[in-house]
């Protein structure tokens, strides 16, 4: 029997709740690249939130029975509870502009009921270059080839 897909109705319900509540967020990282067709492998879905103190964020978590764990000196901000296990919270992206600047160029991708804001592939590439970490640099050729492929498809 096939295993259930990792990203299913519970995860989609969380994104729906974020959109319904009007939370300012972007899907970033390799999950964002995968949504755009890049042959990238990842274990989580990174969400860049503009403001972790936004009450709408807490309402979205409450709607799906999830909760927020504030960062400490040694841990990042975390969320827990049903449907949130795959998600990581990000509050800064290397090599990019402010949240507002990057959100203004976000693309919208249909996931379940909602259209979610996603960082464009070209900006994901910039952020991976900026970190300089070997694991980020190693995925650059695949991301750049995916971007070339997208651009050629759009030209047709």
């Amino acid at each position, binding site marked *: 029997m096939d295993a259930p897909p990792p990203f299913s109705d519970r995860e989609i319900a969380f994104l729906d709740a974020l959109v319904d509540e009007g939370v300012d967020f972007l899907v970033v990282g*390799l999950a964002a690249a995968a949504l*755009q067709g*890049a*042959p990238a*492998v990842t274990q989580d879905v990174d969400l860049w939130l503009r403001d972790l103190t936004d009450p709408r964020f807490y309402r979205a978590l409450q709607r799906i029975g999830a909760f927020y764990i504030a960062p400490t000196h040694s841990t990042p901000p975390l969320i827990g509870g049903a449907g949130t296990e795959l998600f990581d919270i990000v509050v800064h992206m290397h090599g990019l502009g402010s949240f507002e600047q990057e959100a203004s160029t976000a693309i919208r991708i249909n*996931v379940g009921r909602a259209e979610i804001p996603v960082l464009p592939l070209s900006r994901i590439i910039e952020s991976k270059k900026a970190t300089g970490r070997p694991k980020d640099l190693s995925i650059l050729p*695949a991301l750049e*080839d995916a971007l*070339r492929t997208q651009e*050629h498809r759009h030209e047709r």
Partner: protein
Amino acid sequence: MPAPTDAPDPAAVDALERARVRLRAAQAICAAEPQASFENVWHTLILLEESPVDRLNRSLARGRATAIQR
């Protein structure tokens, strides 16, 4: 009269035709972008035929499998 058993499966015929179209597209992109890897372009074209959620699920399932193998 029953269909002959060696009649081509319509789904397979369709898949073959889509693969031919994809192959031509991948070759054209690689001709225009010599630094591109054919494998990356080919797999991107396959993924672009799927829904965004299916693309993400492929990525996450492989990520999970990779983590288990470590």
